[in-house]
């Protein structure tokens, strides 16, 4: 089970995402933004960070990297893709996921151990959670406010494509407390919090991040 992790200039959590994949039983493969090549991986993680400094808009410049052309093509063919934080922003800018991310409503960076509710287990990256389960995942972002127009939000809700919601005080003003969403097929998932920081005892507030990776590994292995 080979899972690619993309590195853009300014990616920060790429190493952590690779560590998480390996700790959870997968084999991580480093992918380079300039290469239009997915090196035969079975799934892709677009990690967190400030690619291109988050200048212009978070994710706006990375979207045009050669590797993203391949990711978009593979996603259309059903390959599982997980975008974490900056990765989520890149997926939105690439139109693989609807909506967009703007600055947090309080205009400050926020790093905290965030409670989430699992709203959909019907995705490639969430099948090992329980529906409605409450988990804790590290959250850290500056531009984490998920926004979309009302019809889009209604459609996401109606089609069960809200994957995670924030519990407690909304940390960034995201519309309808949305923390993560999925595409129509349930293979492309975007998530603001960072599961890769919740995979090792003593280095994060929980181990709840593991099941993102074990979910996709199980799915690919059993496919």
């Amino acid at each position, binding site marked *: 089970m080979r899972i690619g992790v993309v590195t853009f200039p300014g990616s920060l959590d790429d190493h952590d995402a690779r560590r998480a994949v390996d700790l959870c039983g997968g084999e991580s493969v480093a992918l380079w933004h300039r290469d239009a090549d997915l090196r035969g991986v079975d799934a892709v993680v677009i990690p967190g960070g400030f690619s291109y400094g988050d200048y212009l*808009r978070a994710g706006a410049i990375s979207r045009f990297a050669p590797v993203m052309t391949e990711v978009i093509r593979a996603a259309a063919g059903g390959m599982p893709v997980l975008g974490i934080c900056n990765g989520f922003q890149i997926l939105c800018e690439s139109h693989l996921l609807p909506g967009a991310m703007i600055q947090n409503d309080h205009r400050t960076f926020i790093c905290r151990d965030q409670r989430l509710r699992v709203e959909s287990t019907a995705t490639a990256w969430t099948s090992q959670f329980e529906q409605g389960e409450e988990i804790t995942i590290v959250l850290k972002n500056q531009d984490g*406010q998920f926004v979309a127009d009302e019809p889009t939000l209604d459609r996401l809700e109606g089609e069960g494509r809200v994957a995670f919601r924030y519990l407690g005080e909304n940390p960034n003003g995201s519309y309808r407390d949305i923390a993560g969403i999925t595409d129509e097929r349930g293979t492309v998932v975007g998530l603001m919090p960072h599961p890769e920081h919740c995979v090792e005892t003593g280095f994060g507030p929980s181990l709840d991040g593991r099941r993102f990776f074990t979910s996709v590994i199980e799915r690919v292995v059993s496919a």
Partner: protein
Amino acid sequence: MGRIVVDVMLKPEILDPQGQAVRGALPRLGFEDFTDVRQGKRFVLSVDGPVTDDHLAQAREAAQTLLSNPVIEDVVDVHELTHDEPEQAPITGATGSSGGAA
């Protein structure tokens, strides 16, 4: 050297945290008359030589594809920066009267 200005604003229906913050701060500084504030982006693109129609067309396309995200933003203006505009000839100090359309 010619220059082209591209102005991008958040769509009216999207909440603008930055604009809201400015809106909140103005009355505290004694500016009571402003009922709303929106903050957007202004890009100044330079080209060698004079600005041509082709440059403007390119700028418009760049504005749509890269400089704005159509899900949340509108490109509200793309135009050549002409000499009577005070770009980089700042309004400074007390007089302020050198500014735009006073």
